[in-house]
């Protein structure tokens, strides 16, 4: 349905929680293959399988590595507050239209159940109208449009793949987003996203009170992963601690980005277990 609605040029969204998102992967792959804009919200629960309905961050691989078949990319935004859930929705639709690419908003059960104040700055968010000459509207006064991801003639699919790779490069260059907290003099930098980052931030402030030089990098775009946040801070005496509600998924992107130039440690729980401030502080004290 999202494929069809989006193919007409409408702004289309679907949302679910982990198992439902697994079910949608075939369609997401088709949407990506047909260069259609769409927004997909995944409020992650714990897995695998039916798992349980507690918060988790164990769908990071699924979100950032494609999820469905065929080697496509989703732009993935990770809000950490109710305010950001609201704000990022505007960004998500704009990014989707701008690049003709599906965008995922990746939250978790903590964020999904959260209640907190929200400011609606209506002037800040203007709904942009992107021209969509490719939309299916009936071929009045023009050649027919076709929404498709199927390329049977030899070479055509490779050409389409390469065109998409160019798009992905451009997105990587332009759209990396992250938040930094007290990183400039930090000897230990925590890395966490979404609601996990809020807990990590709490730990950073408590550690600062004890005089520990600790900071936080919070990736906001999970894909493109915000490499620029790390590349200027890869000294041998800087230590990283990745904290996730998983057993180490974003960790792999941090390792790839740090590329052996700093030490990278990990602390994570999943299956509904959420790392606490105290647990993070304890882990930091062992580094």
């Amino acid at each position: 349905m999202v494929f069809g609605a989006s193919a007409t040029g409408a702004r289309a969204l679907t949302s679910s929680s982990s198992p439902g998102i697994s079910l949608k992967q075939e369609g997401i792959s088709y949407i990506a293959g047909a260069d259609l804009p769409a927004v997909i919200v995944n409020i992650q629960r714990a897995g695998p399988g039916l798992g349980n309905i507690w918060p988790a961050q164990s769908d990071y691989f699924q979100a950032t590595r494609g999820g469905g078949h065929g080697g496509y990319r989703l732009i993935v935004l990770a809000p950490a507050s109710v305010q950001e859930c609201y704000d990022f929705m505007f960004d998500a639709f704009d990014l989707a239209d701008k690049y003709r690419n599906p965008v995922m908003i990746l939250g978790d059960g903590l964020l999904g159940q959260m209640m907190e104040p929200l400011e609606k700055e209506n002037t800040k968010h203007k709904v942009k109208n992107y021209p969509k000459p490719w939309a299916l509207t009936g071929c009045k006064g023009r050649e027919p449009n076709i929404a498709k991801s199927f390329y049977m003639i030899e070479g055509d699919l490779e050409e389409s793949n390469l065109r998409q790779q160019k798009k992905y490069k451009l997105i990587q260059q332009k759209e990396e987003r992250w938040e930094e907290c007290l990183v400039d003099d930090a000897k230990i930098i925590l890395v966490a996203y979404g609601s996990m980052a809020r807990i990590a931030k709490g730990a950073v402030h408590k550690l600062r009170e004890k005089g520990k030089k600790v900071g936080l990098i919070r990736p906001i775009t999970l894909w493109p992963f915000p490499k620029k946040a790390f590349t200027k801070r890869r000294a041998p005496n800087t230590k990283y601690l990745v904290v996730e509600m998983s057993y180490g998924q974003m960790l792999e992107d941090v390792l790839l980005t740090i590329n052996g130039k700093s030490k990278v440690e990990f602390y994570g729980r999943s299956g509904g277990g959420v790392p606490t401030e105290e647990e993070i502080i304890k882990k930091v004290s062992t580094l």
Partner: protein
Amino acid sequence: MNKIFGLPESLREVSTHYCAGCGHGITHRLIAEVVDELGIREKVIGIAPVGCAVIAYDYWRFDCSEAAHGRALAVATGIKRMRPQNIVFTYQGDGDLAAIGGNETIHAANRGENLTVVFINNAIYGMTGGQMAPTTLIGQKSATTPEGRSVELHGYPLKISEMLALFQGGDKAGVSEPDRWRRFFSGRGPFSLPYLLGDEPARIAALDKRSNV
């Protein structure tokens, strides 16, 4: 001079990839003729299936979409609900509509979506090499039923049109299987063309008129 036969505007002048004697090409043409007769070429949006007719959009000359296997009615619903002013139809095989897409078919019909479905039931998975479909006839040999379809092992053929006709919204979601259409396919195996439609009776009339030719 009166032109009585020619290439429909809604059909491209290309040869199809279908097997010799296949009914898909004929149905494509029939649809193109009906679209022309109704003067809706610039208004119609077609959804091609996964199956032998996957590139039907290369033969028609109007806006079209693809759909994942079995999902044509979901895609069509998305299109029609965003663009109620357009006429939206799906073109689906029996593997597509009755097997993997059974759920979409049932719910789209039950919701009474204002869509037309052209159901090409050749009682087989044609594209993938002739495996049994839910519509394969009892005793019919296929790649996966070399001894013929057996009721004990495979159950009875699924009667899609009859099933949909039972729906409470049956007056809204009508099912029709005009006998006269059959003669287009006579001698070419169990090929029939039921279609299901919403509230645009003009289309039934046009289809029936066509089949009188």
